[in-house]
């Protein structure tokens, strides 16, 4: 058993965790601040200021509509976090419920759930998004749904795999002997014991959701104008590549740092939750 003090001490020594937490914290803070304040308006068009070089007034310059790139990046963080949180939320809620159900009931229920997850692997996020936009039109909500659906089977698999290991333990037998039903055992014993695995999984999926959203917005299937999004900023930058190549650099750095931060945070958390694994690697 480790004490909470020991956990904190190890957290402070873990490079992955520290860098990951710092980057993810910056991402969250940027999104939060941009709700109340940005240096300039992220959507106001100002033709006299179009394609301005970085300066004191515009730290990262302006785009072809004269919008402040820094402000757009800040507001874009909101968008990435929104999509990530909701899509992973949908995937985690339904996936964990399905996985826990499969593990608690076993038999045909487990078989059905597992075959359903097999089958949804046939539709990677971008493919579901393409189908949804073909009939509903592009938009943030549709990309959230597509990425969320893609996450359900992943969480269901991880939950079922880890929960099955817990169900085989002796304290579950004791809980059964005490007369607890499967639902109560799942809530009181199984889920708390696999929480760490699920948190790590959620962090990694969050990163993947940000990547997927950026890809969809780049294609024009995700977030729509005038709401700024990193993926679409890159799309617009590509048309300006010969005039202002710097526009193609900043949004990409933002995406890469956000994803890198969440991935490192996930790695760090896994090492902290499972010190055996950390030593082994």
């Amino acid at each position, binding site marked *: 058993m480790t004490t909470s003090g020991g956990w904190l001490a190890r957290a402070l020594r873990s490079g992955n965790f520290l860098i990951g937490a710092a980057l993810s914290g910056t991402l969250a803070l940027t999104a939060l601040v941009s709700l109340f304040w940005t240096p300039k308006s992220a959507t106001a068009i100002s033709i006299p200021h179009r394609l301005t070089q970085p300066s004191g007034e515009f730290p990262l310059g302006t785009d072809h509509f004269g919008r402040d790139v820094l402000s757009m990046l800040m507001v874009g963080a909101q968008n990435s976090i929104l999509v990530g949180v909701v899509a992973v939320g949908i995937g985690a809620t339904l996936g964990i419920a399905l996985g826990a159900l499969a593990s608690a009931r076993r038999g045909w229920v487990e078989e059905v759930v597992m075959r359903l997850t097999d*089958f949804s692997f*046939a539709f990677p996020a971008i493919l579901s998004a*393409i*189908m949804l936009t*073909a*009939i509903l039109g592009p938009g943030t909500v549709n990309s959230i749904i597509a990425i969320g659906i893609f996450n359900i089977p992943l969480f269901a698999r991880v939950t079922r795999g880890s929960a099955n290991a817990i169900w085989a333990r002796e304290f579950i037998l004791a809980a059964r002997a005490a007369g607890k039903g499967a639902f109560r055992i799942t809530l009181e014993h199984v889920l708390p014991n696999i929480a760490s695995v699920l948190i790590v999984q959620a962090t990694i999926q969050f990163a993947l959701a940000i990547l997927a959203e*950026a890809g969809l917005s780049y294609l024009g299937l995700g977030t729509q104008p005038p709401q700024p999004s990193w993926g679409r900023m*890159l799309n617009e930058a*590509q048309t300006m*590549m010969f005039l202002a190549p710097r526009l193609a650099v900043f949004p990409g750095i933002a995406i890469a740092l956000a994803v890198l931060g969440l991935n490192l945070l996930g790695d760090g958390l896994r090492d902290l939750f499972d010190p055996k694994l950390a030593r082994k690697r």
Partner: protein
Amino acid sequence: MLLWTAIHGSHGIAAAIPREPIAVQIAAGAGVSVFLFRRFLTFLGTLVGASVVVFLVLEVLPGDPALIMLGTEAQADTLAALRKKLGLERPPLERYFDWIGGLVTGSLGMSHTYSVPVANLILERLQVTVPLAAMAITLSTALALALGLYAAARHNRPGDYGVMAFAQLGIAIPGFWFAILLVLLFAVVLGWFSAGGFPGWGDGFWPGFKSLILPASALALAQAAILSRVTRSSVLEVMREDYVRTARAKGLTRRRTLIRHVLRNALIPVVTIMGLQLSNLLTGTIIIESVFHLPGLGRLVFQAISQRDLPVVKDVVVLFAAMVVAINFLVDMLYAAIDPRLRLHDD
């Protein structure tokens, strides 16, 4: 899950294949055919399920596909004509079986925008997408094996950290952004390549090949990053095995041990992950082909969406889904062929 364990250090996947007594091998033989049969049924079921979903989402759920294709301002007689052309007046079940029959025999529907059979469009576009995917997988595998082996040989030294940092970055950088940066450097600044487009294979091999180099590199980055991590952790794990120590103890050099004993066993998870990555690579082409304006399958489906060409969307999406399912099935088979222990318990 497989990907997860393989990347983040698994327990014994790469271990040596144990020699079982003959009786156990016979029992295992019976298990194998049951395993194969079950997997094959699942494979067929998944294919059918995927086609049902595509059909429901694109033809039944929207209510009137003709209205979606033409927009709400379309004239009543134009709508009626399109409904008739698409056969929408027939019951959905009949349309589904017609569609499936067409898919099996290769006679797909007609594209609304191009007024040519979808099958022709797909065949034409595959000439871009298949070489692109093949180049990307070759490049990423070569890079990943070299980097992974190098990192494992330099375990916990600067070279190892360098490779691991590359892997973290490669996973975090979006492929399409890397693609844009490649265009920026090699097309805009250096002028070595064109910024996009595909001249076709008509003018010989080199012009077509050259136009696919940048896109394939962009596609390969993330795959190479993930695979190099898998290779490294897999090699490290095998190097801890007793038989490797034995090989070294009997006097084999480090290099010979690495090649004869370590690499062969370490490749098992690498091959598996490579197969799983193939499906990511395939869907990755949808975005990368857009970045480089390549007339491939991904660009076809993407354009079909903006043109609301539902017959094309339906056929290409189901083709992508079928390719993903088929790849997963083949990987399962390959995995079972390489590691017999996995055949007996079906996860």
